[in-house]
């Protein structure tokens, strides 16, 4: 989908691949016998890098370690997003500090991913699952999973309360 920062391919079905003059890469899913299959991002993964969570924290003078997401909101073009976390920590002068309550982060998708300057290695890479990803009308629920290691992003807008 994305290689070395460049967008190179779509998730496709037989229907959409034919429009692109390609062969389907088989991403259609339905949540039961009575629903029409839809393209779902069930196996989209971030390649591991060569950093580590410990190293990323050690290299950060002033930041936040966002540990676990709990809410997601994104616009209809999948550009403007704001996520809330269950668990986050302050990072000051290369050290993990106090725990933060209700930390949030927001951005514009390509700007956010363009600001990624470190990704953890294979030993920290694991698959994160979500059992209730919704899409479609009538609504369909899918299990989705994304493999990722911790990653660092620069100049991200955090916090919403004044």
């Amino acid at each position, binding site marked *: 989908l994305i290689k070395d920062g460049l967008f190179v391919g779509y998730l496709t079905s037989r229907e959409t691949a034919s429009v692109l003059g390609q062969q389907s890469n088989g991403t259609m899913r339905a949540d039961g016998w*009575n629903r*029409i299959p839809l393209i779902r991002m069930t196996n989209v993964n971030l390649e591991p890098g060569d950093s580590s969570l410990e190293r990323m924290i050690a290299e950060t003078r002033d930041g936040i370690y966002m540990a676990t997401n709990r*809410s*997601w*909101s*994104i*616009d*209809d073009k999948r550009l*403007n997003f*704001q996520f*809330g976390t269950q668990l986050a920590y302050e990072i000051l002068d290369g050290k993990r500090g106090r725990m933060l309550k*209700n930390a*949030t982060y*927001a951005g514009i998708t390509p700007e956010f991913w363009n600001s990624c300057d470190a990704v953890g290695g294979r030993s920290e890479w694991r698959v994160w699952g979500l059992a209730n990803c919704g899409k479609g*009308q*009538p*609504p369909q629920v899918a299990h989705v999973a994304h493999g990722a290691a911790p990653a660092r992003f620069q100049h991200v*807008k955090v916090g*919403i*309360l004044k």
Partner: protein
Amino acid sequence: MKSMEIARLTADGELKQFMSGLLERSPAQQTEVMVTEWDSALTRFANNGIHQNVAERNVSVRVRVVKDRRTGVASINQLNEAAATDVLKRAVAIADLQPRSEVVPMPGPATARPVEAWSDATAAVTPEERADFVQTVCAKAGQAGLKAFGAYSTSAGQFAIANSLGVFHHQRSTQATVNSVVMGDAGSGYADRGAIDVRELDKNELATEVIEKAQRNQNAQPVEPGIYEVVLEEYAVAEMLEFMSFMGFGALAVQEERSFMKLGEKITGDQVSIWDDGLDRTGIPASFDFEGVPKQRVDLITGGVASGLVYDMQTATKAGRESTGHGLPAPNTEGPFAVNLFMKPGSAAKADLMSDIKRGIWVTRFWYVRVVHPKLSIITGMTREGTFLIENGRITRPVKDLRFTQSILEALKGTLALTRSTKLQVSEYIGASRVPAVRLKAFDFTS
């Protein structure tokens, strides 16, 4: 040739016989059986043409058994003796594997007031009639140089619940909903409608609204994020109410200390009154809940003061009071849910809501709303398909969609006006709200 598509639902007598037979056969101390049956169809359109028709007829039989303080639940989608035997056997086997624990009590028999939730016209809608509606929207969009997208669905169903303490309730209902996005080269509009009786859905009125909105919403330019006075159309108001219900109107949220509701305290502006009434025929009524308890009206916010909560059997037992008839299928972790919401209208005409706004934002609807902080009633989301700048009492231009992050209670504290007309908004998930459009003093657009 006009095809026939009349809702096919199991006869009342047959349904009751199936449920009674299942209860009699159960070896458990307490048994509950819930049957949901539906016959529905959906016509989807895109690029000014129909591209998909789906229809579904199905039934769900859900059985809950309680044995020695152990609960088991199983379900099946057939209504026959073999299915009843199988689903009971599985529910009992599951119960036998559970540890003993607190059991959600089943209610005893009580009279539920019948509601009018059925329309023969909706139950008999044909694919041709759905296509005729869609054709009008698409043709008008095409004439305006725009493209219409959306879905039109009709359904007929029945829901029955019985338990071994003598409860038996049964209700038939119909629903027709249509939504449409109309797009031009540089912007889009949105409109939807929902009703029990399909004849209340006016294809010309819907087409006019969505096309006019799309035409006005071309070439939107950005506006600085910040705090603005706003007019929220009914689509946005209903979504705000749904999130209030999700976060805080249920007794479990209060018992677990995660609700914004502080009973007896002033939490919004004086003009705000919100209640839940499953028996009001101007909503999408239901006479009993998913535990078999008759619905009661509950005043949630009255004149700005938090005045009540909705209860199910579990939370009512804990609070030492009666359920208000707002239970979801038990046992569950969600708690009771207010799904028949009403907001008290005001006296303004919709167009007059902005008449003395110096600089503000007109919001058609919200998109992808999520909870940020339930105790503070803070939500975030985007505006979509019709966000406009108001200057000196009138709309001057469309603006790019904005993200908001806003406490609902804080926003409602600044309620300046509400329309005298209300709109029935059928939820994408469960239930419906009847709400006015509102003018609010301050709304925080964060990006």
